[in-house]
């Protein structure tokens, strides 16, 4: 071969290698919006910290596929109107490689058509049934529920054990609460319960005294509430202020926000007697979760967010773990390849092993229903003790039986 051709070939090879290396040095961009203010803000900030911990952990181990991970996040203020614009910006301006959904059903619902039409992988973040109508095949939810039954069976079951015959529904008019309410109504009917009150309220409602009065007048055995943090707090305060009546045996079920530490602390003894859902309470032994929570607690105190971090952070860290597992196994960032992998394989995370159904939800749900007991005011550390939230469901984790009637347990 003539020398000039050899040199040209060598140059070409070096150029290709250099550009390949340059591309390899480009960080992998993971983008999302997270509600850091607004109704879900308190939970969002804790979840964000967990994701940032994952990014640090992964980069400390050398990154993914030899590239560092760069995390781009915006605040959507729990406002569903902002997320389409934010995710369009993430895709077209920031040019991210991977998407994580915002925490919560309400901010996530508007971007489902967008990701389906662009055929992108979306890692869900504690939404409920948000893929129901769009039916996107590249959606994977990190939350331990699947359909309404996975959520309400435990709650309604506890009520039936107490001999309940009638039920009242109080649901916010937003995507999460309505999805849950629609499912729960069906299940209540199947269980033979009679609905004596059924009210949807606008998400911005702050005064619930008239609704609580109406609930009291209807004299239900079970009150199934589906609410977001701001309304959950307002409802608990209203119940505390004017009472919900002696007939009520079971109260709660789907109240988001009663798992956030700042809210638990500020409501204090008003929580007693409420039976509500959770994803993790002290006592549940998932592999690696307790070690994570210890590391998290130190960082949370510095960052001034939820110091206990029970509800969201472990599951957000799990999102990172799932991405890491899929990317490392397939050695690819292609969304279709990753989606196929997650559909077919068991994901190993600090909240246990996860297998996905065809709709992108957990094949084996693990929603906990627990009753608050013996809570005192202004004490954050008490929630670390197992007995403060008595697990009623699922059977394999049960630590106690439900106590009723509701007002009596509260000592009022």
């Amino acid at each position, binding site marked *: 071969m003539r020398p000039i051709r050899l040199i040209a070939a060598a140059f070409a090879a070096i150029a290709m290698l250099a550009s390949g290396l340059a591309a390899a040095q480009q960080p992998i961009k993971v983008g999302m919006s997270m509600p850091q203010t*607004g109704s879900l803000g308190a939970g969002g900030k804790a979840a964000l910290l967990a994701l940032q911990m994952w990014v640090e952990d992964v980069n400390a181990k050398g990154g993914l596929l030899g590239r560092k991970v760069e995390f781009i996040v915006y605040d959507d203020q729990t406002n569903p109107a902002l997320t389409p614009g934010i995710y369009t910006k993430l895709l077209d301006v920031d040019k991210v490689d991977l998407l994580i959904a915002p925490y919560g059903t309400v901010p996530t619902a508007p971007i489902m058509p967008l990701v389906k039409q662009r055929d992108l992988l979306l890692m869900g973040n504690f939404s409920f049934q948000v893929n129901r109508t769009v039916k996107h095949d590249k959606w994977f939810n990190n939350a331990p529920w699947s359909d309404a039954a996975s959520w309400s069976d435990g709650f309604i079951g506890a009520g039936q054990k107490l001999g309940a015959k009638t039920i009242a529904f109080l649901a916010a*008019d937003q995507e999460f609460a309505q999805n849950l309410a629609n499912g729960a109504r069906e299940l209540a009917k199947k269980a033979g319960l009679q609905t004596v009150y059924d009210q949807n309220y606008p998400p911005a409602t*702050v005064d619930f*005294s008239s609704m609580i009065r109406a609930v009291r*007048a209807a004299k239900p055995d079970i009150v199934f509430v589906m609410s977001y943090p701001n309304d959950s707090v307002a409802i608990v305060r209203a119940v505390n202020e004017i*009472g919900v009546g002696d007939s009520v045996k079971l109260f709660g079920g789907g109240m988001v926000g009663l798992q956030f530490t700042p809210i638990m602390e500020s409501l204090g003894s008003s929580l007693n007697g409420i039976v509500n859902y959770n994803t993790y309470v002290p006592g549940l032994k998932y592999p690696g979760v307790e070690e994570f929570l210890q590391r998290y607690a130190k960082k949370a105190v510095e960052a001034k967010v939820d110091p206990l971090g029970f509800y969201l952070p472990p599951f957000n860290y799990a999102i990172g773990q799932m991405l890491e597992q899929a990317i490392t196994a397939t050695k690819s960032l292609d969304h279709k390849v990753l989606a196929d992998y997650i559909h077919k394989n068991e994901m190993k995370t600090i909240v246990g092993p996860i297998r996905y159904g065809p709709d992108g939800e957990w094949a084996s749900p693990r929603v906990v229903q627990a009753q608050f007991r013996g809570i005192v005011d202004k004490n954050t550390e008490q929630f670390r003790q197992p007995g403060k939230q008595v697990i009623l469901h699922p059977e394999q984790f049960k630590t106690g039986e439900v106590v009723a009637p509701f007002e009596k347990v509260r000592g009022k």
Partner: protein
Amino acid sequence: MFSFELLLEAILFGVLLGCFYAAVSIGLSVSFGLLDVPHVAHPAIMVFGSYCTYLLGLYGLDPIVAGIVLMPVFFLLGVGVYRFYYESFEKRGTEAGVRGLAFFFGIAFIIEVGLILVFGVDQRMAQAPYIGTSLSIAGYRIPYRLLVAFGVALVLTAALTIYFSKTFLGRAIKAVAQDEPALRLMGANPVRIKQWAFGIATGVSALAGAMLIIVGPVEPSLDRLYIGRTFCVVVLAGLGSMTGTLAAGLILGIAESIVLTLFGASWAPAVAFGLLLIVLGIRPQGLFGR
């Protein structure tokens, strides 16, 4: 789900709430009803008062006390705002036109967004021993916060009614509303009087803001809903009538409460605005208007 007892309770709550609505509308009754200032920023100033109350509360001040303390500060603020408005618009004769309305609308937005930038979009509540507890009477449970607001509102309305009918300055304000040239001929300076009146209206808004945060949590965009409630009360009352304000407030409060109980929370925001449209359509001069 309908029961007579429930309806009675609704009316009771409506009366308590209605008096509160009257009290928060009194400031507008003076500034718009008497002085003809297109003051769409009145609810925004009131919400600003709520946040000031919240701030003082962080230092341990009871909300009512905070409201009273803020009154003179807001009085001065009102005097300043009116002076600016007069110099920029009224003097040149283009008051209730596009510019005046746009001016106050811009002010309202600036206040609202300013509050978001400083406090964020999250709700704020006041702390007091009477917030969160209720009075048990005859099987009903009435939240103390509503009773407190009701009491303060009554006192405020009574005080202002007496002021406007018995004191010299108060009567001068009413005179300036009715017949400004005549007042000028009698040697009084109408601009100074109007300034004073606007100051009173704004000072009252401080206390109204304190009551607002007692009755429930506040967040910066709350002023939008209260534009409807305050203007509904003022228009229904008839411009310039103090006792009319109380009556109109009660009507609105009871109407809202009944709709809330019978039809649900999703219809409640429309009651004030719907009533306003009805009044404007059928009897724009209101119940007691001049």
